[in-house]
């Protein structure tokens, strides 16, 4: 229980009661045979070490390097992403949004925290928190500025609110000066936030 007084993260300080409640629920569910402790460890390990934004970065890098793949990704994202072995929970029905010199896409879930888990992993705290959910749809340019993403005035900003079971992934624009890079090197430039649409990819 010593995480109680030691948890100081701004968004995450739980009520002390919450920590106790989680322990109580887990202990009762295990005791009644409703959850398998080894399955809990496997679930945690999956999202802590196996599934994360490196998956999405591979999808983006492939689309940058392979025009036929990009076409498939834009016309049937779920199938094209599954080609790379990424599918399943919270990514069953995917749509990919392509950024262009004229259009910048940005994804939010104002009602909860819908997010494409197979390609991005679990969402960061800011994505799930009130300020982003409240502001992304109403003042996206101010939000982008806070992320250090300043777009030219003539770029059209499109915000996508994931209010149903479709999950969105942004395909950012390929940075200049990357012609000589292979897919693994390109993937290194693709950040999580560039696939949510709150940032641009890194420059080489």
């Amino acid at each position, binding site marked *: 229980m010593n995480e109680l007084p030691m948890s100081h993260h701004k968004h995450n300080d739980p009520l002390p009661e919450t920590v106790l409640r989680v322990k109580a629920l887990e202990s009762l569910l295990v005791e009644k*045979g*409703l*959850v*398998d402790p*080894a*399955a809990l*460890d*496997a*679930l945690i390990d*999956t999202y802590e070490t196996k599934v994360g934004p490196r998956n999405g970065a591979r999808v983006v890098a492939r689309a940058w390097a392979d025009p036929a793949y990009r076409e498939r990704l834009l016309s049937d994202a779920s199938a094209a992403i599954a080609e790379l072995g990424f*599918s*399943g*929970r*919270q*990514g*069953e*029905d995917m*749509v990919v949004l392509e950024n262009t010199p004229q259009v910048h896409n940005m994804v939010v879930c*104002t*009602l909860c925290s819908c997010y494409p888990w197979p390609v991005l992993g679990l969402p960061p705290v800011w994505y799930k928190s009130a300020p982003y959910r409240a502001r992304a*749809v*109403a*003042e*996206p*340019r101010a939000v982008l500025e806070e992320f250090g993403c300043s777009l030219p005035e003539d770029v*059209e*900003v*499109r*915000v*996508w*609110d*994931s*209010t*149903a*079971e*479709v999950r969105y992934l942004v395909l950012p624009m390929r940075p200049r000066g990357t012609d000589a890079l292979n897919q693994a090197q390109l993937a290194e430039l693709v950040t999580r936030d560039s696939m949510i649409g709150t940032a641009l990819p890194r420059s080489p």
Partner: protein
Amino acid sequence: MPVLKADNVAAVLRKGASARLADPLPARFAVGQTVHALNINPPTHTRIPRYVRGRRGVVHSDHGVFTFADAHARGETVPERLYSVRFSSEELWGPQGSPGGSVYVDLFESYLASAT
């Protein structure tokens, strides 16, 4: 369903649980059509956010047929067509909207009416 065992975790996650349904329902709205989101206030689960209720938008795409979330929250599987609807920022936020900006919202067919 049985208790989730460690051996099944990877398979269960990989399979997921798509909310898409195969029911061949006709589409009441066409891509490009102007619609308005109904002003409804169900006291139970719904996926129509308050900020689009009563606002006019344009059907951007037809996602196909999915399980209707409002009914699903009551444990019922009701097929319904789902659309991406584009709302201009100014339609949603008036003078505080950003010119040229827009918000795309996934809305079930029964949240919408024709605006013509």
